[in-house]
């Protein structure tokens, strides 16, 4: 089975902190994605990556950056956390033109 592992299930940080969310997949997938999920808004794509060191902006990249130094790992970075970034963050991976497999999510609270 595909395993997508997010480093934390719950995280509490303070406004202005730099926050790192980590995601690791074990199926050698080329594609990796970061979403945020908010009630009534569904999932919105923040960033995605089709290959190592490659990244593309999704629909809501403002206030975020990403890093993919190794194929299996995709990191989401909140440069200076703000309260409006309190949300559930989901990581996913896939092979080209195949269904995305999701991690369990990180519920991030910014105080």
């Amino acid at each position: 089975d595909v395993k997508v592992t997010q480093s934390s299930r719950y995280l509490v940080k303070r406004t202005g902190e730099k926050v790192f969310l980590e995601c690791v997949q074990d199926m050698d997938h080329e594609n990796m994605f970061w979403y945020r999920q908010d009630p009534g808004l569904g999932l919105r794509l923040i960033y995605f990556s089709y290959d190592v060191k490659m990244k593309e902006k999704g629909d809501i990249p403002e206030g975020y950056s990403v890093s993919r130094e190794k194929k299996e790992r995709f990191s989401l970075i909140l440069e200076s956390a703000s309260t409006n970034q309190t949300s559930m963050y989901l990581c996913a991976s896939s092979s080209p033109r195949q269904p995305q497999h999701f991690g369990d999510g990180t519920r991030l609270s910014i105080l």
Partner: protein
Amino acid sequence: ELKVEQNPLFLSMQEGKNYTIYCNYSTTSDRLYWYRQDPGKSLESLFVLLSNGAVKQEGRLMASLDTKARLSTLHITAAVHDLSATYFCAVVFKMTDKLIFGTGTRLQVFP
């Protein structure tokens, strides 16, 4: 811009009843996915629909796709409590692996 509209947002239904969830999208796409999310859990892929007239069935769930109408439906037959979850449709953006998600339908099945 690709937009995906899903309705209803919330569905409360009695066990044994039938109902349909609708997913409309605004521009052509070559793939549509249905996902299920249980409370506090990750998203699980249910169906992928590739072509006009495609129909997929798994247990009490049946998904169909009409690419001309840009409409997919998820039909629930004789609902049972175990089907209680949030269901998302997601449409592929152009010829990429980028998904645009609907807002989700929260289904609650009661005795």
